[in-house]
């Protein structure tokens, strides 16, 4: 499963994502596309986000059971504690 949160991005990008996922709240998308599609969607979101921010979380086979990536202006950062990934709030 994948969750994406987009902030302050062009409407057209959100529209495009709804081809693949459900927009359960403005800017919050849920879906379960394949790993390949997931990475393509991430690329696309980063390319068209302009000044907005993108967040993607998806389940994977690590200790936490998921991984997260951020792009653009999200104000938060992912920090790696020897393999455990947590979020830093400035």
């Amino acid at each position, binding site marked *: 499963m994948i969750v994406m949160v987009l902030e302050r991005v062009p409407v057209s990008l959100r529209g495009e994502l709804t081809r693949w996922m459900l927009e359960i709240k403005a800017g919050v998308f849920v879906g379960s596309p394949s790993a390949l599609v997931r990475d393509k969607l991430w690329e696309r979101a980063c390319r068209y986000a302009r000044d907005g921010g993108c967040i993607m979380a998806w389940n994977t086979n*690590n*200790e936490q059971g998921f991984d997260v990536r951020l792009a653009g202006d999200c104000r938060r950062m992912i920090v790696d*504690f*020897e*393999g*455990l990934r*947590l979020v*830093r*709030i*400035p």
Partner: protein
Amino acid sequence: MVQDFRELPKLRDSWTYLYVEHCKVDREDKAIAIHDADGRVPVPCANLALLMIGPGTSITHAAISTLAECGCSVLWTGEQGVRVYAQGVGETRSSSSLLRQVAVYSDPEAHMRMVFKLYAMRFPEPLPEGITLQQLRGREGVRVREAYAQASRETGVPWTGRSYDRTKWSDADPVNRALSAANSCLYGLCHAAIVSLGYSPALGFIHTGRQLSFVYDIADLYKVGTTIPAAFAAVASGEMPVETTVRKMCRDNFVRMRLLARIVEDLESLFGHDESTAEPCDTHDPAVPGALWDPRAGQLQGGHNYADPGAGEESKL
């Protein structure tokens, strides 16, 4: 206060460990967070088995009480290895595990059977009939020596034996430093699991005479599969500092072998205990004293006054 302990994720599903240094750990809106120069990092501590605190860290009273409530163990560790273990009251309120451990510990025959069980778990092949304890120790020595030699062969990191001086940490060779850092991680997790299930870390069967004897007993089941290969691989990778690298590699090994779940399963099978049929501890109030021991009835209800009505009235005359 966590009211219902079933809300807490079971240890087997927890994340293994988090190591922090040069920061401040404080309570943050009912959870805990790590504060440093760049901001704060909230830590989902109810989901964590072990918080390892390195040099230059300060931790507040509120943070420790939150960690204790969540059943997350804390250990202070530094260059010289582990200094202090701290834990809340574990995630079980019942003392049934501990009482079972004491019973096995204090009965010479059961104690011996437990020692054999602990050794048998380390060898893939079943133990030959009539093997003596001395022969078992010899076999175990060979197994460990072979594990070091194999890790050394596979990584090309030379191995001259386990040696380190607690007073001159930095003089130890990198692989010994890596082993110490990795083992403190493994000991911490074993300690957390033992406490969380309500056993005593001090009542060991193979090891004896230390406050952490049982931790050493349990950790020895997993070293060959986790910390030994991680230590050699960490040194071979050349990434510095070796302590950080080895902890990262240990995490991968712990995940691969489902270490926390394994420890829980192994403890249950050692003591013939099954969590699913265990009686739940009926009280949510940790301050309730529980039952009174009785040689015939087994247990009497606690919190009850057993004085005869009228006894103690003489003083009023």
